[in-house]
């Protein structure tokens, strides 16, 4: 599916109804978890959420992330690695977590969840206290407390599902909605968990590590970079090349992207996936149709240069301190070519008379 670039556009379209969404899939280290939290912090602040809403989103996110880290196996990869999804639609937030679970734990977990879902607000409060007491008496650790806390903070039922992985393990999905008002019908929630399960299949197949869909500003950029930095366990050089290319791609959107809603900032999508021995970095954003031809020429020009020519071109541009109005490619595009050692793959998808959706992909191969 990723062979054609329309995947980025499809992803973007699929997620477009969200004002914001991001997905992380992989090993959840303390570092990764911290960075996901600060990414959310940044975005909650950007949206000007009330401190009450912030706290609710926060505590559910933290419980969810803890569930994943507690249950992950350090060696699990591919379809076995954990997933964290946050989406914002209008005034609602959805947090979905997924992690591996031993099959023999399913009946007990199901019983717990159903019990929690059967209780009203006051009953939940009492239940929380009694479980807390039991735990202190028996020293068992927080069995079920996290789930009760999530139900209480969301004010909604917890939606869940399982997917069989092998004889021993299943994948456990937990989906929570946090809304300002509680008028949502439960079907909506089930519907979006189904969507996420389908999306998860694609992400597994394409080995997608991170998707971000939302406003791309410098704060989000720094958080996304930190997540990838924490995630990658490769040699320094490869790590830095990925970092390098990611910065240039994202800053390009921050600086040159156009937006359908100017008051909000430049929105776009970024995702990173692995295939064979290569990382693919993909971004998509709107640009004004007037810019398309120029940009196409710039990319084609850079794509047509060999290594020596690229270096010469880079050196020339390095000494050009004029405000960039020339028709030549800027350092950013040259850098993408130099650091990735591959041609830049791109596409323009005309949306309407004013805008096109511009997707770009770079590929970085590695041997370690």
């Amino acid at each position, binding site marked *: 599916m990723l062979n054609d670039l329309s995947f980025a556009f499809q992803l973007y379209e699929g997620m477009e109804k969200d004002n914001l969404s991001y997905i992380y899939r992989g090993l959840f280290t303390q570092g990764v978890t911290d960075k996901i939290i600060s990414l959310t912090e940044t975005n909650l602040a950007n949206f000007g959420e009330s401190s009450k809403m912030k706290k609710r989103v926060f505590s559910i996110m933290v419980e969810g992330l803890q569930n994943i880290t507690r249950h992950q196996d350090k060696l699990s990869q591919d379809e076995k690695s954990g997933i964290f999804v946050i989406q914002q639609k209008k005034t609602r937030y959805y947090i979905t977590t997924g992690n591996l679970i031993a099959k023999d734990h399913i009946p007990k977990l199901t019983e717990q969840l159903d019990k929690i879902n059967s209780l009203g607000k006051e009953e939940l409060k009492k239940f929380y206290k009694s479980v807390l007491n039991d735990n202190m008496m028996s020293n068992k650790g927080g069995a079920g407390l996290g789930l009760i806390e999530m139900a209480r903070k969301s004010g909604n039922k917890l939606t869940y599902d399982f997917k069989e992985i092998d004889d021993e393990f299943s994948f456990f999905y937990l989906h929570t909605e946090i809304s300002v008002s509680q008028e949502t019908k439960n079907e909506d929630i089930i519907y979006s968990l189904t969507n996420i399960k389908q999306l998860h299949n694609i992400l597994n197949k394409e080995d997608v590590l991170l998707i971000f869909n939302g406003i791309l500003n*410098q704060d989000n950029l720094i958080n996304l970079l930190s997540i990838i930095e924490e995630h990658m366990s490769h040699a*320094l050089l490869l790590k*830095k090349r990925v*970092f*390098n290319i990611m910065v240039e791609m994202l800053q390009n959107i921050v600086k040159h992207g156009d937006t359908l809603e100017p008051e909000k900032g430049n929105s776009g999508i970024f995702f990173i996936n692995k295939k064979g021995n290569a990382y693919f970095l993909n971004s998509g954003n709107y640009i004004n149709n007037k810019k398309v031809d120029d940009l196409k020429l710039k990319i084609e020009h850079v794509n047509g240069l060999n290594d020596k020519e690229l270096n010469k071109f880079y050196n020339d541009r390095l*000494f050009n*301190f004029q405000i960039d109005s020339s028709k030549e490619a800027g*350092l*950013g595009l040259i850098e993408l070519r130099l650091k990735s050692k591959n041609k830049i793959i791109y596409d323009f998808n005309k949306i309407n008379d004013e805008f096109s959706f511009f997707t770009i992909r770079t590929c970085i191969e590695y041997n370690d």
Partner: protein
Amino acid sequence: MNNLIIEATEETPKIHLKKDTNEFVISERSLPENAVEFYTPVFEWIEEYQKNPNKETIFDFKLDYFNTASAKQITKLLLMLEGLQRLNKVKIRWFFKKGDLDMKSSGLRYDKLIDIEFEIIEY
């Protein structure tokens, strides 16, 4: 003259320019949204320093990472130091972390393009 002390953030480098102790260091990472604005005080400081520079200026570049927008500003900084060289001795020590061949090539690139003595040092 006053020292210029800028501490590092997640997106901007540490810059310590101290005439009295003869220390000139830029380190960590540089990927500000607006590189021109960020580097302006640095250029202003160097301009002032050029009026009465130390006998020898050894400038340390110990960057972990810089984006292309910063690359241009680094070029500008190096060109200013190249100018300073007409009066006094200037030397650039360009550090790169073991294994970071890209940072090493960046040093070699500037060495070729700028007419100052460069020492490329692995750490």
